[in-house]
């Protein structure tokens, strides 16, 4: 197993895609720190992981605060004595209730960049010195296909995800001489609480969607845009992360891999 005896941190690991990543790494032998703000959901992921036979621990973490991600890294080392993998997955679509606004406000832009961009920077900065000293480490950042090309409507989110790809490349360069791989995964369409709020936003901003449920809006989007004709799942993303975080990907760094059924090909 790729991650036997290893330790991974997954930010935003309490639900959705982060949960899928945490479970996938755990299944492959990893101990997992679930770093999130949502204690209740995080604790249920921890329980699920421990039932599978590896260790897991909830670490209350706000990725927008450097002191908080510093504490997250320290917790991993205290608990398990080493840190091999950091997955920067925590992300938001805007400030609270962003989906009730037609156009993103300055608060939405700020919140999106705080979590989706600085969150990655903070997490990375909290582990890089340790990884450099050790001469080993794997960092995987969750961007989005929204970061691959500008689109109207949700510009704040797309811009933050383009920045996430760029930030991954910057740290890939910086950390490459130290034996540390930094890559990004760009998920496509995955039914999570985040997508549910995006669907609600679409429902209120586009008359075409007025009579549809959020799930129906999602399914229409999948049918219209995914060449493989099906939605992607948190497990799919977890498996791609598990590949990039493993030694099987030892010569891969600075890349962004779309897990999107072929929606985008760059």
């Amino acid at each position, binding site marked *: 197993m790729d991650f036997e005896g290893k330790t991974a941190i997954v930010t935003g690991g309490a639900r959705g895609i982060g949960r899928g990543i945490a479970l996938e790494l755990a299944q492959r032998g990893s101990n997992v720190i679930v770093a999130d703000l949502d204690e209740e959901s995080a604790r249920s992921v921890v329980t699920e992981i421990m039932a599978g036979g590896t260790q897991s621990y909830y670490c209350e973490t706000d990725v927008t605060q450097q002191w908080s991600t510093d504490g997250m890294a320290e917790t991993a080392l205290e608990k398990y004595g080493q840190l091999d993998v950091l997955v920067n997955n925590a992300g938001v679509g805007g400030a609270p209730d962003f989906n009730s606004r037609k156009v993103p406000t300055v608060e939405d832009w700020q919140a999106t960049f705080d979590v989706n961009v600085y969150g990655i920077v903070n997490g990375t900065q909290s582990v890089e010195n340790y990884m450099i000293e050790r001469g080993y480490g794997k960092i995987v950042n969750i961007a989005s296909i929204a970061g691959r090309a500008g689109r109207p409507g949700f510009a704040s989110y797309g811009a933050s995800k383009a920045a996430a790809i760029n930030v991954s*490349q910057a740290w*890939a*360069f910086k950390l*490459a*001489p130290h*034996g540390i791989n930094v890559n990004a995964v760009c998920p*496509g369409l995955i039914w999570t609480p985040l997508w549910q709020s995006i669907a609600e936003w679409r429902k209120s901003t586009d008359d075409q969607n007025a009579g549809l449920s959020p799930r129906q809006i999602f399914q229409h989007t999948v049918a219209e845009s995914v*060449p*493989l*004709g*099906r939605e*992607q*799942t948190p497990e*799919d993303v977890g*498996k*791609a992360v*598990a*590949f990039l975080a493993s030694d*099987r*990907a*030892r*010569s*891969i*760094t*600075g*890349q962004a*891999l*779309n*897990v*999107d*059924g*072929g929606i985008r*090909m*760059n």
Partner: protein
Amino acid sequence: MNFKGQVAVVTGGATGIGRAIALKLADKGAAVMIADINVAKAKETAEEIEEISGASSLFVTDVTNVAACEGLAQATIDSIGAADILINNAGIAGSADWQTRSYSTEEDWKQTYQVNVIGMSNITSVFRSQMTRRRSGRIVNIASIAGREGRPSLPHYSASKAAVISLTQSTALELARSNITVNAICPGLLWTPMWEQVGDRHAQAIPAYEGLTPREVFDTMIAERIPMKKEQTPEDVADAVAFFASDDAKNITGQTLNVDGGFFMR
């Protein structure tokens, strides 16, 4: 990751990167068909595979010859079964003695395109019907970082590999609805007989490399251009191929992944 009971075809599987791919897939349980023009080497590799996974076959196939490709498709079914996995790896870098010239001839252009692009299309055509009928399949095409950007010295080769990336995307879209994924890998710098010739050519065509031996050209490029400061190996490429060929990547299609230590980040 497990390919037990699956059938894989590897073109150019006799030597170099193709051989490493064939051995990797066999190691994970696949029965492997080696399709190559180098009969002696193909025999050796097929024998090695036989020892690993218990099932292998070889068919002398020039990918530029449509009748031979059709023969290969039938021979695969007859010997080890219908193909689940197709790895299009056969490739050349020019016509006879290309490395002794500092420029590309019409023959270099024609033959390189004939093998790297038309050959890939020939092989894909004969296997897509097997896969479409069973509504499942994995195709992985070996492109090159040379196809990521035009560079001096090997315009015919770079253009052919850019075409491979484009062909990968077209094929992915054509086959998506048949549940067949098609992805490409761009290997970076690997010290194979092919690269020894590339080094000869670069020393003649690029002023900065004048007077260097092929290995010196290779080492200089790694130092200058590869953030990880390391050459890549056939094993590295094989691990990435195995990921795309596996169930873990079932929702990834049309993508091109660089296995290049960070040479290109796009």
